[in-house]
């Protein structure tokens, strides 16, 4: 449905086009059942970054302060992309794993349900 505007055919500028992020693209990441982190996070990352580097180099800085983080068995982690099951290839880049600008991925860590099992 078109915008209700005085001028026919009006379209505004897209505020968050990928080109505005200085060579990065936005990736949203959420860790299920760990809502001590109030919401998923938003990170600007190079599209060429290997998925394995996201796990080994980026996530510890984001989630390492949670007591469950050190207990994660990474071979068991379940990933989702926009809510659908997703099996990332650790060696391939974010882009080659099909992640685009503003993709939203979530990880579930079986057996870990947050502070005192409360989903925190």
């Amino acid at each position, binding site marked *: 449905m078109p915008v209700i505007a005085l001028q026919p055919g*009006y379209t505004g500028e897209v*505020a968050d086009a990928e080109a505005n992020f200085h060579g990065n693209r936005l990736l949203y990441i959420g860790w299920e059942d760990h*809502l001590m982190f109030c919401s998923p996070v938003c990170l600007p990352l190079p599209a060429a970054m290997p998925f394995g580097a996201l796990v080994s180099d980026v996530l510890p800085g984001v989630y390492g302060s949670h007591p469950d983080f050190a207990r994660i068995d990474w071979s068991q982690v379940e990933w989702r992309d926009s809510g659908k099951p997703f099996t990332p290839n650790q060696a391939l880049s974010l882009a080659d794993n099909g992640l685009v600008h503003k993709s939203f991925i979530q990880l579930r860590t079986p057996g870990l349900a947050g502070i005192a099992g409360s989903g925190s």
Partner: protein
Amino acid sequence: MNQNNNTASSARRLGIKEKYALMTRSLGWDTTYQSMDDVFPFDQFEGIKIHDWDKWEDPFRLTMDAYWKFQGEKEKKLYAIIDAFAQNNGQFNITDARYVNTLKLFLTGVSPLEYAAHRGYAMAGRSLRGVGARIASQMQSIDELRHAQTQVHTISHYNKYFNGLHDFHHMHDRLWYLSVPKSYFDDAMTAGPFEFITAISFSFEYVLTNLLFMPFMSGAAYNGDMATVTFGFSAQSDESRHMTLGLEVVKFMLEQDPDNLPIIQKWVDKWFWRGYRLLTLVGMMMDYMLPKRVMSWAEAWEMYFEKNGGALFEDLARYGVKVPKYADVAKLEKEHITHQAWGIFYNYTQAAGIHTWIPNDEEMDWLAAKYPNTFNQYYRPRLEHLREQEKAGKRWVNNSLPMLCQICQIPMAFTEMDNPTKIAARESTYHGMKFHFCSDGCKDVFDGEPEKFQQAWLPVHQIYQGNCFREGTDPTQPGFDPLAEVLAWYHLDTSADTGEYNTSPDRANWERWTGRSHLPAGESPAAPAKAA
């Protein structure tokens, strides 16, 4: 009747009805040099059809001369009380310095909306061709300016004693959580005049205003802040006029043409949801920030929306207007959203202009009693864990920026009501780009006008685009600290305005001045910082 007799000594006094007719409706005229459509170019493009503006009823029949007289009297009383408050050091009569954070939220989040409403009603008044509606808009525009001024004047006294109150308008335009109220009003003001007036006069002032006004004003009264109570009283008679305008405008549009109904229903749905999301911040204030609590958010929602709002929509049913879409979701969420919102501010306390803290044991017990289905199960464990961290000298913060909802701009912290530990996320794709939302309500708003909302100024994205640094900042310099630069651009002083309450100068000063602590004897999470 001879109008020229008005000023002569022999003039008889006009009856209220005559005076009203002369000083409102008779002030308008149909233009002849230019067409009315050219003079009023903004009141048709939204699709609302008005056939007879004379059918507009003014429930208050207030004329400008009477308006000035009433407002002038209220001003005199208000400023006398503010003076007395200052001279008697009224700031020391509040419960404790945590309370002042509600004033910080109010001054940076709400007072600028009063000013925005002043502008919005001035524009609406200019845009509507019916003279009755224009005069009502004009009065409301002046009211809103007065509210902004009296709030700033009242709260400025606190600025002499507490941190974070120094630059409210600068912050309103920049801070990440203040984009929530700002974008709400910007959305209304960039719509047409009929949507603006439905959004603000009806959905906000009529349907939801009690949930904004009551918590702040009763909260002030309960917590010893007589200055804020006084501006509340001074604004109250205006608010009832605004509420009546809100109802009148919706009924008028509905009676003018049956084609208006679907347009109005869409706006009622949209602005209910947007207003409800905005009120999350108020609910958080009620449940977590008032040292002495008035009632819980859930209780307020039941009383002011489910009961009173229910009666209103029963009344409007004869026009075909339905209860706003997703009112059922709001009902389910009432036991969760305030805990989730306080979580957001606790996570990002290092970047907020209000202090945050973990409720003490007594306060947690109150929350457990008010939220028997949710607090102990979902929220208490994380608060207790965070308190342990704080006691161990490791006050926890989230050091990654949050994912925001494209519409309400609140971090995506709300959860699914059939599974409260799962984040609720909705998505749309528009022109090949993904957009994310916290709820079906926010997704519907986007899908209705994607061209508009793809332009949203989302604080997190703007930071990453490099638009939130002071002029002349070079982000490529070695050792560049983006968070510090963003906070400098916000005009937040990290040694005083941001962070944990327990280690803040506000707490240290308060205890030094009054000898009173907010903690029960024996409970001490952390030593206060040095007084500043």
